[in-house]
């Protein structure tokens, strides 16, 4: 009896193993993973590229988050990974350990918007200092009323809504506003789902929150954007136009695709897919459709050039940087 069970279990393990290795995926497949912020873009690219190739090439897209995506990417499991922030130094090291060389490409531009209730008339323009005063860790429990930010504003309790600490939105917002990544007050409603922020702010006349531009555009009837006062004194609202011409600062940010050089060199379908994604026409048609800001045609062409020359490395030192222009990011010369 015992012998029978041993044989049976050995046989079933052998069967499982043989099944695992007999995988016959004949159709070349591009493997994309990464940030959920970048997902809609990657999905649109994948869908359209597959249609164009009429089934000759397949593309799959996962949504493991920026960090999870880099873990797979740096083990050589994926060809392209989306990221809503630049690669960190630890991730660079992991990639180096596994001999994964990467090309850093901005796939689109995103802006973060501060939003308030539509009936809020006083806070239609805020300075970066005011936002910092509101969101920095020292504000926790202390800055709770609007008139603490500006004496002319009402004596009303501020309702705070923001991004969850795992999101790239949180990373970039804290970096741009408080000056340090991951440095934020903790007493606000944090959510990974920007739709919750929309719900919260649209239901509270004295609330303020921040989220990605696409969510503002889709909910323009429910919430109102806060203009951010620029250094030249002008008050700029977040929009596609102000993100492209980089006049909306400091909350305009690039979002990325990291492409494995090895995959691009050895798999022609990966090469084709990336070229498709950075063609100016594709950029204009697809990126805009899913709510992000496409690369200007000139930048897209430069990006193609950078990809063809296989310019390696990151323009960032393991963290976000303010005032990085798209031109710098797509420069084929590389920055380090």
């Amino acid at each position, binding site marked *: 009896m015992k012998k029978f069970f041993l044989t049976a279990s050995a046989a079933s393990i052998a069967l*499982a*193993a043989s*099944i*695992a290795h*007999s*995988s*016959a*995926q004949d*159709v070349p497949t591009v493997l994309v993973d990464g940030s*959920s912020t970048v*997902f*809609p873009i*990657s*999905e*649109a690219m*994948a*869908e359209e590229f*597959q249609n164009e190739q009429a*089934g000759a090439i*397949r*593309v*799959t*897209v*996962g*949504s*493991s988050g920026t960090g999870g995506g880099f873990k*797979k990417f740096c083990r050589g499991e994926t060809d392209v990974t989306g990221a809503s922030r630049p690669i960190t130094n630890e991730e660079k090291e992991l990639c180096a350990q596994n001999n994964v060389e990467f090309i850093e490409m901005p796939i689109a531009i995103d802006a973060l918007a501060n939003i308030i209730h539509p009936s809020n008339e006083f806070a239609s323009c805020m300075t970066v200092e005011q936002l910092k005063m509101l969101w920095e860790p020292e504000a926790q429990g202390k800055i709770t009323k609007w008139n603490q930010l500006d004496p002319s504003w009402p004596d009303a309790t501020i309702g705070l809504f923001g991004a969850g600490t795992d999101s790239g939105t949180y990373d970039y917002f804290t970096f741009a506003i408080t000056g340090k990544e991951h440095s934020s007050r903790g007493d606000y409603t944090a959510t*990974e*789902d*920007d*739709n919750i922020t929309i719900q919260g702010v649209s239901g509270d006349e004295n609330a303020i929150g921040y989220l*990605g531009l*696409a*969510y503002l*555009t*889709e*909910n323009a009837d429910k919430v109102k954007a806060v203009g951010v006062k620029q250094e030249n004194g002008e008050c700029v609202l977040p929009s596609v136009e102000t993100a492209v011409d980089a006049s909306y600062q400091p909350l305009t940010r690039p979002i990325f695709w990291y492409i494995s050089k090895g995959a691009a060199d050895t798999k022609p379908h990966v090469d084709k897919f990336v070229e498709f994604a950075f063609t100016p026409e594709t950029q204009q048609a*697809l990126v805009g*459709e*899913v*709510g992000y800001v496409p690369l200007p045609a000139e930048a897209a062409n430069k990006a193609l050039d950078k990809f063809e020359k296989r310019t390696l490395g990151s323009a960032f030192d393991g963290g976000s940087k303010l005032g990085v222009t798209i031109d710098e990011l797509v420069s084929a010369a590389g920055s380090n």
Partner: protein
Amino acid sequence: MAAVDFEHRVAFNPMSEAEASRVIGVAKRRDFLFAILGVFVLVLSMGMLTALIVDLLVDGLARIDYDFLTSFPSRRPAQAGILSAWVGTSLVMLTTALIAIPLGIMAGIYLEEYAPRNWVTDIIEINVSNLAGVPSIIYGLLALGLFVYTLGLGRTVLTAGLVLALLILPVVIVATREAVRSIPLIIREGAYGMGADKWQVIWHYILPAARPGILTGAIVGLSRAIGETAPVLTIGALTFIAFLPPSPVQPEFPFLNFDWLTSPFTVMPIQMFNWISRPQEAFHINAAATGLVLIAMTLTMNAVAIWIRYRLRSQARS
């Protein structure tokens, strides 16, 4: 002291008629209050459940049509569908059921009928009941390390089936044991009395009698597995996939094809989660529709189990 005791005896024993009806009245009122509380809790929880389902129905029902069920995901909400998601969920559930149910029944029977009563068995039993309470993400991490990296099974339907099977194994084991334990001793003794050996008793008498209970446990487990997101996401289920795994049946010999086990996949909860967090309202409607289809799949699974159980019961009676 003695005086106090004496007084008590006089006061309460024997009880006067008025006193007795007062005590009964209090007890009845308590009964009534508890019944009201019970009804209140029932109405509240069922009301919430109904509200959720009605909300899903209002949002999503109109979106479900033939195209929705036969289209792949898309960036355009109106063209997006759940074909890869429901096929993925069905295949993963099939794998899970094929692994978890036989293993769980065997383990349950072993523990109940064969295992010697000693500390090893005690440790196994404690672990089985504790495993039922382990958060599902932990199973996902285990599967990522063991199945994906160590055994090299990849981010496939097979891996997902294995991890969900592990997840519901304790439920199946416990249900099997309960079902086996509840069988009247008389059946067992009768069979032994007729000269049956232990295996014959189990195979011909215990298992058939325990089948309804085991089936209920299996369905409870599978209903939990079908809604799981975290472990499936951890082992690397995809979100956008616009092709189906190879078909399990083929026209040539040997007619069955197991390539689908090694295919990449996505499942319904992941598709739902992706759509609910998108900015466009139309995607939220898609998510509600996906939720309805998921509920329908779970209910179908339950209905099949109830039908099988009913048939088994009527067989057992005749």
